[in-house]
């Protein structure tokens, strides 16, 4: 707001200069001269002329011009009756000027006061507007907080449901596969016994029935090779069935994701199980290198941590775009804290993306490929373990996630 110069009070004392402002000086002087002669002049209280020319003729007299109670000036002219009458006349002119000046000054003062009052009202309005603005902003912030809380709850609910359904599916499949794998393994073992018996039996046949027909059929059917290969086939099948059994066992471990209770175990165990589950996704795309150090047992929620490692591992796989992809998982104990580091030599990400990857519903994947919740939930899970998760990435070079968890006994 502009600072106004203070308005002069309307009831201030007016000087002769003020009073003569509203009077045509030239005409007044002309009239006075024709009445009182050329030597007439009006002097201010200091004795300086304010109208007409000062002179010091000895035959002149000075008569005070009184406004309100006091003289404001003197009329100087020749000593005559007319001079006294002229004084009264000039006084009346000055009083009229005074009346006008006071009224106009009062008007200015009043208008200024009204203007100031308006300004104050305006300021008060601005103040109240500020208050409402602040309130509105506060409201926005509170709503934002509420929304965040709701989003958080929704996210956890979503994740819990997802984990539960994945867990149920995995448990169901594991159970269904376990039985056939069981009898396949057992049958294969029996079949191996049978084959060794058949081998023994065929040797005897060759010794005792050395006829030309048998020899021909024996060669035609390549029984010797068949018996040898049969055994190999069974051996291969047994090892295949064992692998199936191993995957089922890992799947079962992993299907415990919906288990929220804590367990005390070695985190390397979780990492192994996650790697086995992800083997298919990793496939030929990348070489997985494990460098797992000695870790103490720690209390944690294995299902949740498995979810975190799987999220990060699958993200790493997705990031690999070139041949000779490499993913490394390291673990170790540094400063009495468990440190797990997952690095890839994939496409990396920009600082902009890096800033946002933990934001809910933020995803760089195509529609349908990711919910944008994986890393958000991962961060939540690690935070629930009183740990931290950080990311370091460079475009075209790779990304490293570092998880630090405190050891809980």
């Amino acid at each position, binding site marked *: 707001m502009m600072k106004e110069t203070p308005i002069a*009070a*309307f*009831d201030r*004392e007016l000087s002769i200069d003020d009073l003569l402002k509203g009077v045509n000086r030239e005409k007044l002087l002309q009239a006075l001269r024709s009445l009182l002669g050329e030597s007439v002049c009006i002097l201010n209280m200091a004795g300086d002329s304010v109208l007409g020319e000062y002179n010091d003729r000895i035959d002149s007299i000075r008569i005070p011009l*009184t*406004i*309100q*109670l*006091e003289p404001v000036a003197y009329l100087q002219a020749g000593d005559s009756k007319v001079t006294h009458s002229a004084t009264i006349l000039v006084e009346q002119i000055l*009083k009229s000027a*005074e*009346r006008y000046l*006071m*009224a106009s000054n*009062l*008007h200015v*003062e*009043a*208008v200024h*006061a*009204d203007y100031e*009052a308006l300004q104050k009202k305006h300021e008060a309005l601005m103040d109240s507007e500020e208050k409402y603005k602040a309130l509105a902003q506060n409201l926005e912030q509170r709503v934002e907080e509420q929304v965040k809380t709701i989003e958080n709850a929704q996210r956890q609910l979503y994740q819990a449901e997802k984990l539960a359904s994945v867990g149920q599916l995995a448990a169901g499949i594991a159970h269904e596969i376990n039985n056939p794998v069981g009898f396949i393994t057992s049958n294969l073992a029996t079949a191996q016994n049978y084959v060794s018996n058949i081998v023994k039996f065929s040797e005897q046949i060759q010794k005792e029935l050395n006829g030309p027909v048998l020899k021909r059929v024996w060669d035609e059917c390549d029984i010797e090779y068949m018996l040898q290969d049969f055994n190999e086939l069974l051996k291969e099948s047994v090892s295949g069935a064992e692998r199936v059994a191993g995957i089922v066992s890992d799947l079962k471990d992993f299907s415990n994701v919906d288990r929220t209770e804590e367990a005390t175990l070695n985190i390397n165990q979780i990492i192994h199980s996650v790697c086995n589950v992800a083997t298919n996704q990793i496939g030929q795309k990348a070489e997985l290198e494990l460098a797992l150090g000695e870790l103490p047992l720690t209390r944690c929620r294995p299902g949740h941590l498995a979810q975190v490692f799987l999220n990060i591992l699958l993200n790493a796989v997705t990031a690999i775009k070139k041949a000779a992809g490499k993913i490394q998982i390291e673990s170790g104990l540094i400063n009495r804290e468990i440190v797990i580091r997952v690095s890839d030599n994939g496409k990396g990400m920009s600082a902009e993306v890096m800033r946002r990857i933990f934001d809910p519903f933020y995803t760089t994947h195509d529609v349908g490929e990711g919910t944008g919740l994986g890393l958000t939930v991962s961060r939540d899970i690690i935070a629930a373990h009183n740990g931290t998760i950080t990311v370091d990435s460079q475009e075209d070079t790779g990304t490293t996630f570092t998880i630090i968890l405190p050891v809980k006994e």
Partner: protein
Amino acid sequence: MAEYDEQLQKLTIKLVYYGPAQSGKTTNLMRLYDMLRPELKGDIMTMETKNDRTLFFDLLPIGFRAPSGLLIKFKLFTVPGQVAHDGTRKAVLSRADGVVFVADSQSSQSMNNAQSFQNLADNCARAGLDFESLPLVIQFNKRDLPDIVSKDEVSARWDKTQWSLFFSSALNGDGVKETFVELLRQVYPAMERRFELHTKHGIKEHDFIMSVMTSTETGVP
């Protein structure tokens, strides 16, 4: 606020007649002009419109000289009473050293009196005057008219307050001087305190009042 000019040896005291429209503020001033005989009395300056209503203000300057040579000058103002002229009213009230509130005794005017009195309090605050300590005399005017609020009723209301109450008929001059004397009596202590009227200028409360009333009774030259 009173203005003291040491060089010119002059003290100017501003007194204001406040109140609702047509309650008799200008009439009070005219009667004082007729009745007071101070050493110095200027012309009364009135600014009336054709309906006898004060548009800006009326002004009556009076004064006397103290034994010390100090000129004590009173400027008696009236404010325009009409509600619409509030800006002017506030400007006139500014810097006042004392106020006479002129109320209209007619029964029909009670509401206007109350509004105007509230307006006085508001404008005091706006003009930076302390309403509680401001010298203020209440005058119920127009006692000569029929259909007025009785003295008992007015007293019952105002005796409980800190302000002195006077009844007047300004048109006849009744109560006008008494009201003014009471205002002078209230104004004196503040002036004495600020300007040492007694010790430095030889003016006691009695002289202060009587010098305004008449120039002969005080014996002040």
